[in-house]
């Protein structure tokens, strides 16, 4: 469509048809005042501050709600307009408390700013002011209805961006109030506390609670960095007061989030300065006296100097290596730490320990993705970008509770749907997105291969597959065709419980859309058939040519903030940085040369294998950086036994975690806010982490600790800065070759957007979409895969399937979120979701205590009776150490990726006779329940 030309304040501008006059003016640098308008939201023309004069139009139209027209002549700042704006402002001020002097928004308030610009006074119009009590019963934000100018930005953000609609206009005229249904406190509404309404509020009507009295905008320091929680990688600003306290987090306009956040990123920052932070190195008293191993572990921790602690660690590791050989040592690195720290950790293990026994929790979430997609495509990462999802014509979400686990990507999925995309959700639970979906396939956990093969059966049968793509870009199609032949919709209905007709419709919808994206997560990966599942997903995308273009792709959502990066820089037992196999002689030669050491050609042990080897006495020393296997790993009782058997357990963390409590030496490390570095988010984007604070006490950044240890072990390291480590990574890792500190920091060419790998050179801008011309491995490979049942099947004794996963308000093992006041307030304890009919069968009511038992152990937790889950399936979030879901889970692993089957364990449930001890203790401490 041709652009439209118009004149604004004497200057001409040309903009696309459909643009509104306000945006056209902005393009010219003419700033029209606005209160209700926001570029991302529908324009409602409510505040009438943006009025302009337009020749041949009567009155003063609102520029935000007036589309441009050819030849339009607009004036934005005449005497008449200024008078009208002033009057509008004075009317608003007349119904607004005169509180600027004590308002936390002072200096950052649009109403105040415009009042100043237009000379609007508060006392021009006298009359009654609306009087409403504020809603301040939640710990996240305060709703001060009297300061609300009913611009509706919060309403539209909640409805249009979040797709929730917790609030709306109620009553009318002078009394109009933006509030919840029946005006209940916001925590009783469907609000998810994303705080995105707070971000857009132009006045002090919505204010984060932690910010009250902490300083006005000019007194606060802001540091832009990257969210430490999930793999979305939202850009945030830490807001710090004059005393050096973090008093809040604001969103930044990052490439992954565009000023949106979820509740964890927005309100989950209090862990940073929690009094529980470790401040000094801790060593077992008996270890100082020369005793080691299980015997020493009964003695208490004493605080020691860094020197003493590090010498003990270096000596201990050295002795184990000398006595039992390099294979007796292992290191767990961390998806919470930076790329640079992960690089150093795997280097320490490979160069210093002398084995490849380095792994991290990616094993537990996406090992099957890394393995499966490497086989199918040659590269195990999200093929497309987060921004890309909204352009898709059909989004197929399988095994991902996106709005809770990756909330800001959930926003993109909802946006795609609003843009007209079809939404297909395959999930045993009726998760939030399933409610919105055009089609919801509710498969039995563990039947994903059958389901996907069934879809491919239909697509081939109905001749809906992309023959050109299959011919030109893939291999092994005939084998796939043969395998899926028997997966008729009826056969699949039997295996998966998904009605045949629904399956057919889903297959056709996905194949015919003209651009379909698959989003998946741990519902696909955390199975003994995880790698099979991933390859089957890849098959489906290749079969329909949905790969290599915008709005398509295979998009695994990575769990932790830096799980992608940790894998990228070699925190895996079989590959060096950049997925270069340790078995490859050329790769080995390269790293041997760079590190000046002979390197093992034998792939090391995985997280789960290390635990088993420790029980067998083969692993004697374990170095854990920022992981908490005592909550995160399957079959915790087994993990405890394994760790107890070690000669030396060193844990480096920011808190005394469940795992650290078992250690011989605990080293206090710096949180993300206290160090520099990079995280790589789920869309392969390397983003900056910036130091905003000093670490508490004597805590040190992980990279500094590792550098110190390596020196004491005689490895000759001398890292002085993160930039120096990044250079080393870049030089050795082709996909990171152009990732340099200087490009990412302020002033660098990649400062705003980060760098999406592969970045083959210093002047390369990064790669938003993979496999556009050819696959990383050349041709995409179809894998002919048959359905296999889960490792553990239900029987008469254990009749229910337990799935585990995340929930919105907590994160991973809870060490961070459970130390953040608001998050712990809203979800203080874990639960088990039970379908109402199942609950009735067992005589269990909502909030009853329930004993859940698997073949490995049992825990007591609260019942949450809800039809989110189906009758045969129960669900538990895994964030709660006191009633840890992972006591129950099955450590059976996928034979290829070694990922445990967190999504299927056979359990039985019964009503518990009484509350567990931990709950009783907590009630006493809290003085009863919160509501």
């Amino acid at each position: 469509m041709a652009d439209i030309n118009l004149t604004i304040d004497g200057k001409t501008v040309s903009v696309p048809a459909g643009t509104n006059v306000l945006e056209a003016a902005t393009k010219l640098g003419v700033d029209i005042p606005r209160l209700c308008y926001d570029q991302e939201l529908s324009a409602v023309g409510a505040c009438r501050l943006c009025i302009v004069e337009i020749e041949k139009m009567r009155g003063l139209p609102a520029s935000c709600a007036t589309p441009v027209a050819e030849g339009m002549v607009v004036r934005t700042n005449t005497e008449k307009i200024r008078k009208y704006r002033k009057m509008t402002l004075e009317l608003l001020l007349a119904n607004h408390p005169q509180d600027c002097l004590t308002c936390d928004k002072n200096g950052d308030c649009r109403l105040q700013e415009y009042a100043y610009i237009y000379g609007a006074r508060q006392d021009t119009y006298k009359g009654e002011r609306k009087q409403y009590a504020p809603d301040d019963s939640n710990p996240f934000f305060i709703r001060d209805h009297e300061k609300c100018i009913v611009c509706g930005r919060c309403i539209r953000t909640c409805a249009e961006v979040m797709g929730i609609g917790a609030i709306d206009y109620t009553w009318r005229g002078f009394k109009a109030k933006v509030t919840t249904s029946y005006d209940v406190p916001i925590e009783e509404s469907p609000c998810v506390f994303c705080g995105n309404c707070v971000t857009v509020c132009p006045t002090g009507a919505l204010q984060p609670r932690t910010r009250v009295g902490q300083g006005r905008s000019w007194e606060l320091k802001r540091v832009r960095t990257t969210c430490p929680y999930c793999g979305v990688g939202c850009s945030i600003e830490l807001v710090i007061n004059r005393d050096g306290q973090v008093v809040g987090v604001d969103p930044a306009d990052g490439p992954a989030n565009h000023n949106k956040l979820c509740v964890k990123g927005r309100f989950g920052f209090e862990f940073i300065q929690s009094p529980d932070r470790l401040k000094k190195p801790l060593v077992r008293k008996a270890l100082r006296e020369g005793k080691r191993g299980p015997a020493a572990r009964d003695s208490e921790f004493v605080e020691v100097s860094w020197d003493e602690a590090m010498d003990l660690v270096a000596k201990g590791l050295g002795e184990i290596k000398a006595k039992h050989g390099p294979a007796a040592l292992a290191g767990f690195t961390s998806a919470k730490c930076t790329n640079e720290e992960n690089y150093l950790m795997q280097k320490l293990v490979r160069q210093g320990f002398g084995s490849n026994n380095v792994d991290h929790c990616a094993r537990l979430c996406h090992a099957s993705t890394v393995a499966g997609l490497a086989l199918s495509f040659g590269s195990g990462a999200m093929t497309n970008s987060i921004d890309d999802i909204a352009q898709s014509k059909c989004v197929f979400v399988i095994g991902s509770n996106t709005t809770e686990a990756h909330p800001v990507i959930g926003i993109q999925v909802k946006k795609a749907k609003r843009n007209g995309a079809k939404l297909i959700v395959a999930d045993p639970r009726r998760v939030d997105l399933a409610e919105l979906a055009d089609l919801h396939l509710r498969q039995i956990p563990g039947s994903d291969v059958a389901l996907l093969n069934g879809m491919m059966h239909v697509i081939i049968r109905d001749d809906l597959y992309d023959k050109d793509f299959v011919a030109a870009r893939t291999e092994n199609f005939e084998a796939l065709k043969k395998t899926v032949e028997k997966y008729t919709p009826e056969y699949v209905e039997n295996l998966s419980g998904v009605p045949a007709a629904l399956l057919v419709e889903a297959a056709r919808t996905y194949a015919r859309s003209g651009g379909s994206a698959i989003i998946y997560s741990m519902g696909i990966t955390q199975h003994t058939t995880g790698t099979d599942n991933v390859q089957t997903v890849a098959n489906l995308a290749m079969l329909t040519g949905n790969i290599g273009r915008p709005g398509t792709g295979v998009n695994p959502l990575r769990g932790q903030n830096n799980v992608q990066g940790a894998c990228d820089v070699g925190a895996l037992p079989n590959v060096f940085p950049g997925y270069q196999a340790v078995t490859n002689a050329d790769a080995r030669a390269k790293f041997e040369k760079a590190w000046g050491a002979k390197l093992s050609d034998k792939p090391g042990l995985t997280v789960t294998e290390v635990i088993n080897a420790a029980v067998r006495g083969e692993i004697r020393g374990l170095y854990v950086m920022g992981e908490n296997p005592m909550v995160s790993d399957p079959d915790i009782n087994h993990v405890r036994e394994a760790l107890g058997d070690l000669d030396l357990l060193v844990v480096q963390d920011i808190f005394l975690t469940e795992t650290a409590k078992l250690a011989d030496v605990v080293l206090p490390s710096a949180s993300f806010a206290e160090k520099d570095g990079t995280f790589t988010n789920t869309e392969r984007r390397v983003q900056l982490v910036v130091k905003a604070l000093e670490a508490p006490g004597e805590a040190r950044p992980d990279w500094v600790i590792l550098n110190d240890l390596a020196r004491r072990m005689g490895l000759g390291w001398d890292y002085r800065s993160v930039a120096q480590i990044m250079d080393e990574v870049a030089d050795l890792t082709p996909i990171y070759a152009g990732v340099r500190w200087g490009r990412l920091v302020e002033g660098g060419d990649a400062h705003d957007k980060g760098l999406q790998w592969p970045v083959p050179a210093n002047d390369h801008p990064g790669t938003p979409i993979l496999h556009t011309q050819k696959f990383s491995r050349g041709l995409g490979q179809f894998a002919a895969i048959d359905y296999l049942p889960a490792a553990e099947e239900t029987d008469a004794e254990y009749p229910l399937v337990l799935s585990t996963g995340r929930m919105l308000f907590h994160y991973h093992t809870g060490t961070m979120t459970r130390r953040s006041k608001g998050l712990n307030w809203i979800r203080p304890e874990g639960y088990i979701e039970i379908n109402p009919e199942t609950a009735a069968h067992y005589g269990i009511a909502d909030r009853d205590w329930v004993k859940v038992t698997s073949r490995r152990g049992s825990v007591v937790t609260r019942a949450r009776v809800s039809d989110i889950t189906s009758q045969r399936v129960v669900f538990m979030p895994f964030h709660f150490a006191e009633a840890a879901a992972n006591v129950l889970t099955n450590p059976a692993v996928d034979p290829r990726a070694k990922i445990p089957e967190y999504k299927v364990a056979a359990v039985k449930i019964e009503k518990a006779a009484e509350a567990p001890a931990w709950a009783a203790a907590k009630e006493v401490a809290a003085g009863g329940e919160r509501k």
Partner: protein
Amino acid sequence: MSAMPEKNTMPTGEAHENGTVFDPTSLEGILEKYRGAKGALIPILQQTQASYGYLPRPAVGRIAKFLKVPESKIYGVATFYAQFHLHPRGRNIVRVCLGTACHVRGGEGILDAVSDELKVKPGETTPDLRYTLERVACLGACGLSPAMMVNDTTYGRLTKKKIAEILKKYE
């Protein structure tokens, strides 16, 4: 939102305002008539109110699900029109007139007296659901001012003394 079942869900059958129990049967009947229809919100709200006497919150929640719109939006609409009542109404509606004629002849005093007698403010309902007190502008009985109406009966030439006796008649 499905992810948070215990928030904002008041399962039907559970006790709610004034200890009454919400029985969804007649609401379901109303909704059935409008399945697939467009612009059905206002008639659904009207019939729900006709059936329950007001708009109970569980009903509004159910209507929201049925129409696939946020509950807050329906509440917004309901508050926009004076015809909808969001809280239970009494078995007897007491309307005290404050139109010009009644005002001049002591309507305020009458309202205060009724308010004292019932121990509720205008717009409120007694906890036993016996009375709802409202203020109105002119009952069309100016000749009898000050006036009030209880259900369909108009009482004129009121004095404070008469109030208790009149109200007593209504169970």
